[in-house]
């Protein structure tokens, strides 16, 4: 039992070390390498994540067409203007 508890802890320690090493290498890498890495990650996210959202969006009920009323007298309140959303 003792051995089986220790194993994941050691493994997670190893993963942490490897990740830290990887991050350090990325930080030291040139701009071009870092840009390529971001690009690759974005492609991966695009290919793996977006299809599910696409499916969900297609299943979502369509909103009614035309004008929709908007009552928002606080639109220019300072607190609202401070927010980027």
């Amino acid at each position, binding site marked *: 039992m003792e051995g089986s508890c220790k194993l994941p802890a050691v493994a997670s320690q190893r993963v942490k070390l490897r990740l830290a090493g990887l991050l350090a290498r990325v930080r030291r890498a040139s701009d071009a390498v870092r840009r390529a890495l971001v690009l690759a990650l*974005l492609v991966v996210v695009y290919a793996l994540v977006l299809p599910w959202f696409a499916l969900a*969006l297609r299943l979502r009920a369509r909103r009614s067409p035309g004008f929709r009323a908007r009552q928002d007298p606080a639109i220019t309140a300072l607190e609202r203007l401070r927010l980027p959303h």
Partner: protein
Amino acid sequence: MPCHVLGISAFYHDSAACLLRDGEIVLAVEEERLSRIKHDHAYPERAIAACLAAAGITAADVDTVVFYEKTLPKLERQLETWILTFPRSLGAFVRGMSRYLDGRIDLRRWLERRGGFRGEILFSEHHLSHAAFAFFSSPYERAAVLVADGVGEWATTSVWLAGPDGIVPEREILFPDSLGLFYSIITAHLGFRVNEDEYKVMGLAAYGKDSFGGEMASILPFCEGGGFVLKRRYLRLGGRERMASPALDALLGPPRAPGAPIEDRHRDIAHSAQARLEQALLRIEATLPPDLPLCMAGGVALNGAANARLARRRPLFVPFAPGDSGAAIGAAYVGHWLAGSPATPLPARSARISPRLGPSFSADACAAACAAAGLRARPLHELGGDPFVAEQLARGRIIGWFDGAMEFGPRALGGRSILADPRDPAVRDTLNARVKHREPFRPFAPAMLEQRATDYFEGAHPVPWMTEILPVRPERRADIAAAVHVDGTARLQTVGPHDAPRLHGLLRAFEACTGVPAVINTSFNVAGEPIVCSPEDACRCFRAAGLDALVLGDLWIAGADR
């Protein structure tokens, strides 16, 4: 201590900055005029620097910076578009997200770091910025405000009520149902550039007939309450290529390749699209409170033909830069007049705002630019002043006109203009072929003495910023033949003594010479370049454009002296 508010528009097209000091504009300028990149959408570093220099302050002295739109809802809309157009949107997703990941996703910190701002940073809504610019630069105490463009965050069309208590939204239509996008897909189908050549479609429309009315009704069906829908199957979003879908090609026929000859079918498509846009706007107008004048902004308000039809229904005000660059001024107004309202009393709007908000240059700077360009300049007053210029125009000379502060917005209104005699129809072809290098179907605008406009135009009223296209009286068309479009209309600029005093004087001198109180007024640039800003730009453009002469402040440079 004066209060400084800086409005910024950026990252889509036509970046600009505007600095207010205690509510008055110190300087407003589009980035393209300084970077010399047409429709420059980059962070307006040069424009901001020019604003700060004009006020004699640094970025740290700015009390409030207002960005012209909300960044996160815009990202949300972009994400949804990319998701819905999976997998076509891969390129757009990677390009778009890379831009956000350079730190711009947290725009407040990005602006503090990049711009060195220490004050408050606010985010207006895109359509609120448009509405604020339209209302606060209008003469009205109360008004309905209609904003219509391609898209902001989510809203594409919005109605606002504005008055002494501020500006409040009333209703809106959301992306992708959009009049701007509708016009853009037609622009793309006709082989023109989206977000740039929409006015070519409007110019072409005058040559066609309404034979595609049914097809346009399928693309943009109307619904109750002035609403409309842009049918998704005709729209192709998310890709880098053209926005028109194969379904649109099936409906309207094969798309025109860029540069291909223009056929009658293309003219008819342009005509029917223009007619549909006008119907859509008139239907919205019919739903507005009947007792209120209308202010209008957003890119759709650049459509002078539609504006003229709206102006026949009720008093209409369209500002000189209704597109995204003008939203920088609107954002600054939001920061000064609306943030935390009603604490700040709203401004009295009796005096007409001037579009001459950009940099101006001294006589010494003009002389130095001439010398550096190797041009021989003579003092104009020694030749007889502006009456001499009028005489030269009457002799058929095409003249570059550089006077005072630069205009803000897409139109040259007497600060950075190319002027010509409107009586000779051949002038239009000469200008198109020799100077502007643009399509022969595109018309030129007349600048006319305000008090004489009713003699020449039906339903004339002051339109100092070329915001409306009006019918020319048939009996007067020959007098300004080079400025009259094929359908007998012209994009009028009325010039009063307070709008552009020197141009007003020139028009009076030209009338004394010729009996005609108008000249052709087109922007001082060549195709593909922004309007000139500095004397150096003017000298360079004068050399490149083959103008007959250049008026640079009080200097006269003849073409022979090039």
